[in-house]
């Protein structure tokens, strides 16, 4: 080839590359989407295939410390607890325990285990494995941050204090009967034991090599670890063929670990992921491209975007011990001044739902508009502000609103600041990074401050007791109402479900009257599934029953 030809060829190549890049960039900005991977397959479950599931790097996948949603997702696939909350049916269903009962005041619980259940090492699961697992969580040597789940069990405090090595209240009556005695009656305890981290663990595997177990736990669930956790890359699980329940259709699940939602979304577009998070700011476009799931939780071809509300809430604390904010009418006025819908629409692109109380929808016993002052009513807010002794905000000192910086909190706080200004309240924003923020919350160095609360179990008690019982360590608003305390403890003793729910609804309303916090909004999923997955549901607790999922035949 002559040098002239070479030169022409090079110029052509460079120009072609520039044109290709430009064309793609332009088409990416304005393209009408295709739903893209394979077409819809047969509706009958088929075996085989690997499901690729986006998660962030978990903190732990050993149930001894299974806490955040990423680790819980893996634990839920690898382990089975005593019971499972079926959010479709809205009730608890058997898992490792095939039946269970409580005594008259719900202080002693008996669980009858499924005799066919095995660990992935082939050994049968016994009641002693639950006792061992729970004691492992309660033993302070293991520094479990989730021991609070078992705080109702008799002997919990003694173990935490290091004065006992066993949980007095947990007894393996025989290989397949587990008896749990509580410190106090707690009728919702059955929901507590459905938490994925309260599963059994095989002692022999843990004691053989605790570090190896933390990287490759051996469980009793429908999937087993294929290889040790590749940190920041992936966690692979494969079907456990000796599983006692509904065996998984999938050959396995690859939990692919990403740092960034945008990257995961591109992997989804490239066909390398089956379930991902929708990057912020793209929800509407993605919903238009892939179709919105009618119920918000299940994926079908063409209806792949999940926007169902979660059982978690974004709220603002009042420091009820603060000289100014101990005034209940002032707190009510502030709560009424906040335009929750505007926050959901402008900051979260509709990805949040305005809260109408501290208990989100999806929790058993939820009632709409349960908190009288949890709505936007500037006129009533002004009246209450005057009643509080500050007509049009006169005489009211500037109020500080604390928050941890990032994640859009600045924008939410700025809107709240503007809402308060509308009724005459001057507020200043105090944003600090998370580490410093937690210090402030603990020491009570705030007037108002934001927090989020994610339910561990789908029950009202899981919101009301931790956040408002006067002695609860999570009661950051320092709220203290002896009647509420009394009623909360009384509700825990009611074994009749309907009566119990009614009792919680009453105490919920009472707390709402005192407005110790401002519920702002409820989180929504914002997830996207591929069109080749079937039988997939991502429930309001953020859990997927992966054993029921299959990949459509091509």
């Amino acid at each position: 080839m002559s040098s002239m030809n070479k030169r022409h060829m090079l110029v052509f190549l460079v120009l072609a590359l520039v044109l290709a890049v430009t064309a793609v960039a332009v088409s990416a900005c304005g393209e009408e989407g295709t739903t893209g991977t394979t077409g819809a397959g047969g509706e009958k479950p088929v075996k085989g295939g690997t499901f690729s599931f986006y998660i962030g790097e978990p903190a732990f996948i050993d149930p001894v410390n299974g806490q955040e949603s990423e680790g819980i997702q893996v634990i839920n696939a690898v382990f089975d607890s005593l019971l499972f909350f079926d959010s479709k049916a809205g009730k608890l269903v058997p898992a490792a325990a095939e039946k269970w009962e409580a005594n008259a005041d719900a202080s002693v619980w008996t669980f009858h285990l499924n005799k066919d259940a095995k660990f992935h090492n082939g050994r049968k699961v016994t009641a002693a494995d639950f006792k061992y697992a729970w004691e492992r969580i309660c033993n302070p040597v293991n520094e479990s941050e989730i021991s609070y789940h078992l705080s109702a069990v008799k002997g919990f405090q003694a173990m935490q204090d290091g004065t006992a090595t066993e949980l007095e209240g947990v007894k393996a009556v025989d290989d397949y009967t587990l008896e749990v005695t509580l410190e106090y009656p707690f009728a919702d305890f059955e929901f507590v034991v459905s938490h994925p981290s309260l599963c059994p663990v095989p002692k022999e595997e843990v004691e053989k090599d605790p570090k190896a177990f933390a990287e490759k736990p051996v469980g009793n669930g429908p999937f087993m670890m294929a290889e040790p956790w590749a940190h920041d890359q992936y966690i692979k699980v494969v079907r456990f063929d000796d599983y006692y329940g509904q065996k998984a259709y999938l050959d396995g699940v690859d939990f692919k670990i990403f740092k960034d939602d945008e990257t995961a979304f591109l992997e989804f577009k490239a066909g390398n992921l089956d379930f991902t998070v929708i990057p912020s700011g793209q929800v509407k476009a993605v919903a238009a491209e892939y179709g919105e799931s009618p119920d918000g939780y299940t994926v079908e071809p063409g209806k792949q975007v999940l926007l169902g509300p979660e059982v978690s809430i974004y709220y603002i604390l009042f420091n009820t011990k603060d000289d100014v904010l101990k005034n209940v009418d002032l707190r009510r006025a502030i709560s009424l001044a906040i335009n929750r819908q505007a926050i959901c629409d402008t900051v979260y692109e509709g990805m949040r739902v305005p809260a109408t109380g501290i208990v989100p929808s999806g929790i058993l016993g939820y009632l709409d508009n349960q908190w009288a002052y949890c709505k936007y009513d500037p006129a009533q807010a002004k009246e209450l502000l005057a009643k509080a002794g500050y007509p049009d905000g006169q005489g009211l000192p500037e109020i500080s609103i604390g928050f941890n910086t990032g994640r859009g909190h600045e924008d939410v706080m700025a809107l709240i600041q503007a809402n308060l200004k509308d009724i005459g309240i001057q507020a200043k924003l105090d944003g600090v990074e998370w580490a410093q923020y937690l210090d402030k919350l603990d020491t009570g160095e705030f007037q108002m401050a934001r927090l989020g609360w994610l339910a561990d179990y789908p029950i009202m008690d899981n919101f009301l007791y931790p956040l408002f019982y006067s002695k609860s360590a999570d009661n950051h608003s320092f709220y203290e109402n002896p009647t509420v305390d009394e009623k909360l403890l009384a509700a825990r003793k009611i074994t009749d479900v309907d009566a119990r729910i009614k009792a919680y609804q009453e105490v919920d309303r009472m707390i709402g009257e005192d407005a110790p916090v401002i519920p702002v909004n409820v989180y929504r999923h914002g997830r996207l599934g591929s069109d080749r997955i079937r039988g997939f549901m991502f429930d309001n607790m953020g859990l997927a029953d992966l054993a029921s999922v299959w990949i459509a035949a091509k």
Partner: protein
Amino acid sequence: MIAYIVRRILQMIPVFLGVTVILFILRAPGILPGDPVRMITGEKAISETLYNQIVKKYGLDEPLVVQYGKYLANVVRGDLGDSYQKGRAVTDILMDKLPNTIKLAIAAIIIEMLFGIAAGVISAIKRYSFWDILVTLSTSVLVSIPVFWLGMLLQLVFGVKFKQWGLPYLPVSGMKSAQFPTAIHIILPAVTLASVSTAYAARIMRSQLLEVIGQDYIRTAMAKGLTYRRVISGHAMKNALIPVVTFLGLDLGAMIGGTILTETVFNWPGIGYEMFLAIGQRDWPIVMGGTIIIVLLVMVINLLVDISYAFLDPRIRYGRHEA
């Protein structure tokens, strides 16, 4: 030369001590707010017993000077402690992540050397030609493009679109997969990481070479009848390369310290993102261990760069009398 190397290695000791002292001062109460125990335990409350247990385990109740002494003693034995957040040994975490960052940094430096130097040389020897203008323009563009945007564009074109068009494609992210080995996975992140520095290297190379070409000894070499190619490669390049090598050496050091954006966009499991998280979480063992290793590596790289000068320019000699 050996005495020089030994002296440089000995100089690392006070630097190492200085870095560890500064990091320990940052841990002192009131300097950088944030309770590491609270960061370990997260948002939900824990019992006081457990809190005290964690404080005791990590020796956080001891005076800072005692903590420092114990830390140094452990470091000398090769023990960098356990991460507060992950409970894993810091050495394990760093050994997992650091090689990945080094691989990425080396791949990026190779790209910078090959393309940066080549583009700079072509641009200088064909001054004001089409190629010179192309290099000048493209380096301007590269310098102005944000790294994360370029990364995402490359992912979209070569990972998503090429696959959809049925062309040979590259992996979007990650370090290994069933379809591709690490060597293929590294291409896009390395190109992204190298983009800005390649442009700088090309510009430095061009200006240095132009300056050298104008000097007397080059004219003399030409007058002796040496070929243009021989003059450039044998005489001009050696001198013109020194600033480029300095730049590349510094750049390699900076990349070893972590490249948070590239690691995040390409989901590359490197040290930068790990350190970034650890600082926010007050995970001091990772921050300390990571910083110590990175500082030592950067010092070694700087030493190697300094030694390379002697090979590039025979007039540079490191001896006791020159110190």
